[in-house]
């Protein structure tokens, strides 16, 4: 099983304790957040304030869950992480669905929650993305996540579209839904290309699939301004970025051995893209064919274990 170099220095008890801390305290987020909710912010009508409060509680649960999963994935606990990925109740309800109703129903979530939760479900091979009546939807075996149409504008949505594309691809989504998502990206690229969000390597990575719908001239060529070479270069850039981040984190000895080095231990966008490629037989992009750092090899090994 894959293990990120340097994590073998971590004290096993400390590692378990920290992962448990993030997971165990998920259930207390609401209570603690209410204790520290600044009363000075209560200027909105009561209901709006309560909705905002609940959304923030779920946001915090998601960040904690993400940090716990990252700790498990980099320290040779892929199977354990997979079992958590398959239960989004941890984030949505604050406890696993096995502790309550077996499903979480149909939940409207914000962009960050939609991306994070559908990414985790996709890693667990649970369900898939589709374009529902009210907007993007991700259906899992335990319930559905919906991203309402009014959320699907603005720079935040543009920034996550490439990630959503790889989430969709990793779930072997219906070709027609992938087509619609691709068309959405193509249209937005044309309209908002100047925003600079598509200059990011996460967006250029789409170039790998620039020929996905070739052969039918009426279908969009996703990311039409990127070619496969752009996509390939973006992949290497993300791998380099991950390598340098991990090395920087490891060089901070004081925080690294305490597992408090700042930064994400897992590059979730790179990971879901790699998993999608592996599930889609993206063999030309494997690091065996190119010089790669140990950190890059770890990423691919992890993606293989999850694919």
């Amino acid at each position, binding site marked *: 099983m894959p293990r990120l170099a340097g994590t073998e220095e971590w004290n096993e008890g400390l590692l378990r304790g920290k992962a448990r801390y993030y997971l165990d305290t998920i259930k207390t987020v609401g209570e603690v957040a209410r204790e520290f909710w600044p009363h000075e912010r209560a200027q909105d009508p009561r209901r709006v304030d309560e909705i905002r409060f609940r959304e923030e509680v779920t946001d*915090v649960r998601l960040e904690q869950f993400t940090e716990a999963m990252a700790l498990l994935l980099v320290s040779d606990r892929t199977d354990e992480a997979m079992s958590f990925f398959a239960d989004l109740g941890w984030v949505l309800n604050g406890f696993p669905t096995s502790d309550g109703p077996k499903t979480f129903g149909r939940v409207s979530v914000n962009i960050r929650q939609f991306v994070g939760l559908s990414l985790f479900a996709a890693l667990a091979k649970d369900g898939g993305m589709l374009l529902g009546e009210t907007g993007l939807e991700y259906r899992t075996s335990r319930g559905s996540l919906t991203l309402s149409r009014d959320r699907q504008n603005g720079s935040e949505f543009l920034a996550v579209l490439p990630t959503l594309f790889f989430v969709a691809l990793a779930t072997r989504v219906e070709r027609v839904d992938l087509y619609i998502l691709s068309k959405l990206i193509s249209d937005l690229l044309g309209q908002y290309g100047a925003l600079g969000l598509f200059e990011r390597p996460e967006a250029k990575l789409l170039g790998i699939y620039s020929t996905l719908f070739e052969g039918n001239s009426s279908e969009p060529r996703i990311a039409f301004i990127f070619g496969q070479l752009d996509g390939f270069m973006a992949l290497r850039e993300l791998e380099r970025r991950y390598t340098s981040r991990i090395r920087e984190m490891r060089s901070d000895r004081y925080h690294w051995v305490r597992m408090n080095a700042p930064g994400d231990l897992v590059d979730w966008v790179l990971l879901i893209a790699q998993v999608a490629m592996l599930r889609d037989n993206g063999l030309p992009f494997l690091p065996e064919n190119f010089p790669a750092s140990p950190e890059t090899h770890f990423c691919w090994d992890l993606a293989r274990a999850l694919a």
Partner: protein
Amino acid sequence: MFIQWCLKGISERPTFGDTEAEALLYSGIKSNWLFNNGTMPVELAIPTVQSALGLSALLTHVNNYAAVRTTSPYISLSAGVVLADTALGSRKFPAWRSAMDFATEWGRSFGYVYRVWTIVTPQPAPQVLSVSDEVRNLNLFDAAWKYQSQGEITAKLVIPSAQIQYVIKVGSDRRPAGFRRDNTGFVNPETISNLLVEI
């Protein structure tokens, strides 16, 4: 300048329990520099601490705390932060979470969380003793990017008693542990804002 509410987490130790936590409401929250130089005469302490302040010292406090943790004149506070438009969406890191992680040492101890206010400058002022720096703002402190998710505001030397609203004790599970003390000498920040009442 603006006034910012912040939280500060301190873990419980054999030398820092309920009594000491409550006493801090009235003595102020000291930087480690002041804690270790508390007997220095004021006329010597002021120029000495002034000479210890600066951009380099501030960035060392933020990026390499281990090197200065017993001597730093700076005090880390958390005000929370939103990281906008990442490829995963906009990520929110509330102040209480960061304060709670430090207070409980990530679930390994009980701890105390203080609510304080401080005056923050809209541009870097790491050498000005009486104001705090918005380190979480990368437009001002791009070299502090590593710790941006901690939402840090950095104060200097001491958080005066009048600016500390309360302290609350939390368990290792982060739940309130039944100990809360309000500062009877607390001064509401609205009294120094630029909103004036009519004469």
